[in-house]
């Protein structure tokens, strides 16, 4: 008997179903093990193929996913990856994303259960992004690439099926968001004038990594007219000055996604750190744009040292310190950038792809069982 067959002997580890796509999908819907879309039946053979790319013990949890705090074993994760339509070689990156989002600073319990519409956004850096053909260019956040679509979907299925993010039970989001189906991209390192996100966050350039952010959907920043770094950065900062985001009340780390054309224009005048400072100083909301109750109950309390008696022209900032702003370069041609606010009570987590013995992985083939 194979090792997988032995694991599947355990009570509740497998379920009998008619060998038929429609029957399996009906069963999954009945059990609530779906995001609403049809799933690929997680047969023993398909799960075994997925686990070929796992160098850890298949029955040992790599994380616990809130709010159910379900144990995410490679075996359960593999079933969800199959259901989402992943290729087996995607599996190491999917496992890494789950591990990263379960680290404490991200506050996945809050991200999962809140009434806010956030979802974990995964940005992939390093050579594995190209190896797996993760889209970082045109329509990177949209449809068209299997890796983006299915690794992102596998994450959501794990958050539902292992973590219990069930609408109105473990996921209390007032209305959710399309990003809760799938939310995974790569940074467009080739078109970026600055160092990649994972390098800025302390990892070697040759590492492959994920950065996870408890994020809203991207909000577009159109600027077809600016000719200078100051111009494009001013438009981005102006777009961020909105009243209804959580980040104005938290020391959080929201994200600016710069399209390559905007990024190159900005980099002609500024380093990444200087661009962050420029944006932070100008991305603000005048207190006069906030409701009286928000001023009394939030602004005067959160910023009591600076705004105990605020005047209408005083400001609250979209991001509290320059170093708290994340910038990534993503997308194809076009004069657009995007602002991605966060849940607020969450911090990004960056984690490198490593084999079980702790070495930086050069390729997903490093995980393949021999």
């Amino acid at each position, binding site marked *: 008997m194979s090792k997988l067959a032995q694991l599947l002997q355990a009570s509740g580890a497998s379920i009998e179903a008619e060998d038929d796509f429609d029957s399996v999908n009906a069963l999954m819907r009945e059990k609530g093990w779906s995001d609403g879309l049809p799933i690929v039946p997680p047969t023993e053979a398909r799960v075994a193929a997925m686990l070929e790319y796992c160098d850890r013990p298949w029955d040992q949890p790599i994380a616990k996913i809130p*709010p159910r*705090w379900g144990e995410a074993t490679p075996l359960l994760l593999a079933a969800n990856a199959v259901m989402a339509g992943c290729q087996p070689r995607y599996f190491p990156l999917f496992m890494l994303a789950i591990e990263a989002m379960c680290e404490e600073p991200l506050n996945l319990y809050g991200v999962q259960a809140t009434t806010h519409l956030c979802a974990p956004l995964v940005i992939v850096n390093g050579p594995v992004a190209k190896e797996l053909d993760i889209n970082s260019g045109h329509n990177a956040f949209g449809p068209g690439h299997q890796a983006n679509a299915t690794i992102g979907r596998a994450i959501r299925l794990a958050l539902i099926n292992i973590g219990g993010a069930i609408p109105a*039970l473990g996921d*209390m989001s007032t209305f959710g968001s399309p990003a809760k189906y799938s939310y995974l991209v790569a940074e467009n390192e080739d078109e970026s004038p600055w160092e990649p996100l994972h390098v800025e966050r302390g990892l070697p350039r040759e590492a492959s990594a994920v950065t996870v952010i408890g994020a809203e959907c991207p909000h577009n920043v159109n600027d077809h007219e600016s000719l200078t770094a100051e111009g494009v950065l001013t438009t981005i900062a102006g777009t961020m000055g909105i009243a209804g985001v959580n980040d104005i009340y938290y020391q959080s780390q929201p994200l600016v996604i710069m399209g390559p054309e905007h990024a190159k224009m900005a980099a002609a005048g500024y380093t990444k750190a200087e661009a962050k400072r420029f944006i932070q100083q100008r991305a603000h909301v005048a207190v006069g744009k906030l409701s009286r109750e928000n001023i009394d109950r939030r602004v005067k309390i959160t910023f009591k040292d600076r705004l105990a008696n605020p005047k209408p022209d005083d400001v609250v900032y979209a991001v509290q310190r320059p170093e708290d702003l994340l910038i990534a370069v993503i997308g194809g041609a076009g004069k657009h950038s995007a602002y991605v606010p966060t849940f607020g009570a969450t911090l990004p987590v960056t984690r490198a792809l490593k084999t079980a013995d702790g070495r930086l992985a050069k390729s997903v083939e490093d995980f393949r069982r021999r």
Partner: protein
Amino acid sequence: MANLSKRGLTTAVICSGPFMKLGQAQARVFGVPDLPLLQIPHPLGGVSIEQVQARAEVAVPQFVKLLKEKTQ
């Protein structure tokens, strides 16, 4: 709260209506399925001071009743 409850202190969690199921599920997850949940009207945000007072008046008798039960 679950840890305080396990230590034998009288504890309760206050939930508004739509969050009762989440509260019950979390109590089970943390091994205190009988953790008392005190239900108050939703919402918690965007209510006047008078409405906050009214919610306290709904919660306090439930907690007093709980304390009496625990001390009997």
